[in-house]
């Protein structure tokens, strides 16, 4: 977050105006990985392995979030900590192996 380096102990909601870094800049590269943005999601992708043939990974290419990766067997899996539930993977899958399910 855009906080001054010396004050990283505070949570975002606890930062005072004096804790804000110059220009609200972020000075720590890659800090976004700490923010699990997947909780915006209202639908999640469900992968049907039986239809995922030949493991083409088109979903990996199309995912705008870059959150789909292949597991050890070569099947795609979405990292739900970051998946926003946009459904592009399900739309693009040539085998209809991905369905979007409402989050409860």
């Amino acid at each position: 977050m855009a906080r001054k380096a010396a004050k990283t102990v505070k949570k975002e909601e606890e930062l005072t105006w004096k804790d804000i870094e110059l220009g609200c800049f972020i000075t720590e590269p890659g800090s976004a990985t700490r923010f699990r943005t997947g909780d915006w999601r209202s639908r999640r992708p469900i992968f049907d392995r039986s239809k995922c043939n030949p493991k083409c990974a088109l979903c990996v290419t199309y995912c705008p979030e870059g959150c789909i990766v292949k597991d050890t067997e070569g099947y795609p899996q979405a990292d739900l900590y970051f998946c926003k539930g946009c459904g592009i993977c399900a739309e693009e899958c040539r085998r209809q192996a991905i369905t979007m399910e409402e989050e409860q």
Partner: protein
Amino acid sequence: MAKRVGIEVSVAVGEAVKLVNADVIAAYPITPQTHIVEHLAELVADAELDAEFVPVESEHSAMSVCCGAAAVGARTFTATASQGLALMHEVLFIASAMRLPVVMTVANRALSAPINIWGDHSDAMAVRDSGWIQMFVENGQEAVDNVICSFRMGEDNRVLLPVMIHLDGFALTHMIEPIIFPEKSEVDAFVPPFNPPLPLNPAKPVTMGALGPPSIYTEVKYAQDVNLRESKKVILEVWKEFGKAFGRYYSPVEKHYSEGARVLLMTMGSFSETAMVAVDKMRAEGKDVGLIKLRLWRPFPFEELREAVKDADILIVLDRAISFGGPGGPVFSEIRAALYGLDKKPKVVGFVGGLGGRDISMSGFEEMVAKGIEIARTGSTKEYEMFGVRE
């Protein structure tokens, strides 16, 4: 030794930018700013100024390029006017919030419609809340001096804010005036190199302009406002140092026969010169009239203004812009707000005039003062008086 030369004010502004060794100039030509950037383009083309001149396709791009240049730590300048300033609008807020000390001269010109290329302050007032340090200059010497001062003010690591210098279109930009130029070495000594603490640098990456969610936006905006308010200390310091180095002193509120005067006139920009001559004449006739000129517009000089008007019974404020449907001219309503909480304060009367290049002559200011006194004594149901309007 400093040289005194007869020069067009726009060209002089370009020379001042050369004196501070600007690194990047990005601009789009628009009347009446054109001569400023034309001259800078010439200086760069002739290798008299070692800078990157980016001839962009719009003012929106001009300000965007300036933001990028200032972000890497380049000394950055641009100039615009009227519609160009309006087209830059959204990027102005980004420059100030991201603490990018761009210096920009605005050759004040009326906003369309109808198309009008001549001077007034409607462009300036529309960007009042953009978070920039803003000042109005009244002659060419002030323009040159304050271009030099602005780089030092904005780039100071206690400030890191963009600075807008308003100079009236044509009435200032196209005048040929005798202007004293300091020596290059003196300017080098006065304006230290720009060393921002967190520039864009691959060796030490930072992210600028990331998302600021509701959880921190309030804190970010308050920090920005505190920063702009506190920049006044540095502005005063730079003007004082400039005075010591070059012998010309500047202050947020300039006074002319205002000490003890019961009636005060308040102006901004080049009209102050005419108003000054009018006040001299009224003084010679034994009238108890003084003039105050508001130079620093943002951060607003509350203390200096209150001090300057403390003995007055009547304060007559001239706006060169309308706040349509609002409480009188924008400057007038701010002045009234700044004085409202005081126990002893002058009666403030607002005039709007000098729009779209219409001149107000010396006798015009005399007339305005007489009418202002009359309104203050008899009262008026109008929010403001439209000066010189044909009815």
